[in-house]
């Protein structure tokens, strides 16, 4: 996955930012789907996994900003919190994907995804408690907001994102992380 050229990474990041605007619109056609299934998270996580941390970070910052400017979703009042949260996801998926190499694509993807989702949730909770809502943010609100309400969204992310990465590799739209020759040599 590290063989992607800079131009290709830039264009993929642009497409992921555009999907941050388009996917919530598609999901809002399904009643209540936006808040439960977290559609804006999917392109950011994918961008971090495929293009690396600087691009994931940019996608996490620019995606919600552009969506808010063009469609007013998320509302401006909620925008800074969402930008911080998504930027952390994009950053940590990229960092973990670079550090974790188990010779198994699915293992790498799940370790990076779960790690980034956990670290991102903890750090955005800390940011909310210290910066965005000091004094009025509780542990219960954090657990409910980041784990209970969006449980279907988390399940969908964990099921969908590895599937999409695998499908993209199969379609030769991104380079294989572990080409067969490399695995044979290792064996």
């Amino acid at each position: 996955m590290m063989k992607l050229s800079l131009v290709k990474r830039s264009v993929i990041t642009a497409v992921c930012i555009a999907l941050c605007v388009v996917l919530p619109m598609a999901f809002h056609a399904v009643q209540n789907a936006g808040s439960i299934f977290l559609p804006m998270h999917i392109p950011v996580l994918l961008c971090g996994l495929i293009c690396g941390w600087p691009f994931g970070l940019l996608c996490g910052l620019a995606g919600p900003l552009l969506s808010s400017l063009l469609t007013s979703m998320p509302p401006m009042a909620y925008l800074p919190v969402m930008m911080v949260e998504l930027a952390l996801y994009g950053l940590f998926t990229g960092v973990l994907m670079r550090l974790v190499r188990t010779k198994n694509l699915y293992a790498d993807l799940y370790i990076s995804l779960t790690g980034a989702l956990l670290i991102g949730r903890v750090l955005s909770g800390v940011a909310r408690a210290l910066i965005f809502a000091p004094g009025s943010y509780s542990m219960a609100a954090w657990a409910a907001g980041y784990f209970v309400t969006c449980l279907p969204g988390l399940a969908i992310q964990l099921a969908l994102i590895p599937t999409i990465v695998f499908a993209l590799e199969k379609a030769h739209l991104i380079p294989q992380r572990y080409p067969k020759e490399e695995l044979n040599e290792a064996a």
Partner: protein
Amino acid sequence: MSALPAGQFFPGQSVLHALDARAKLLGFFLLLAGVVCAASLPAYAVAFAAAGALLALSRLPARAVLAPLKRLWLFFVLIFAMNALFYERGDALWSWWIFRLSKAGMAQGANVAARVALMMVLSGVLTGTTAPMEITGALNALFKPLALLGIPAQEIAMILGIAIQFIPTLLEETDTIRKAQIARGARFESRSLWRRAASLPPLVVPIFLSAFRRADDLATAMEARGYRGAANRTHRRARPLRRADWFALALCTGVCALHVVLRVCVAF
């Protein structure tokens, strides 16, 4: 979804169309800052008057700019009701069970709804009168100082420009895929949460595959034409801002300053 004109550019000959994109973008952010400062009836009167004047000057079809507001009417009602009934500050006018209607809550609800509506109109006017390539160029110029901090400003402007241009294409593609999946029996409107969740992967996976295919085509075309990153790119020399652009910027600064004064001097 095809009815959503979010971010759509309408070519035209109006005063706003003729302004430099850099001036429009800076003016937009100044007006946005003014809207965020607004917290009183006179301030909102100024903000709505400014938004109305811009809409009239842009000569954009009002229906297209205001359509997103109409589609979000339920969101506005909900925001107002939630604030009016659950706001904890101020004296209660009426209370029952967990509900607590207060004047401060109603003012807060009206505040949030008005701000969102104003931002939507302003962003509609900006994207309606400025071609995506002009926005990219303006972002490029405005991000230039970031290069001093080592941030790849030109790359970021290029990525944002491509993203803005991809939105209408991907919207159409998503709509086509959605209709195709409905024809194949997908049940997006089912009442069961899990059935709805199960209907989403057949929508999302093809959207990503199609979007990445388009990205692959574009990146290959860019590389084939010799693009190797923004650092090596040459530009047509940007023309300086004209008198009309400076005048527009001064007006926006004036409106923003008026909002700050109203914020300090006038209570709701």
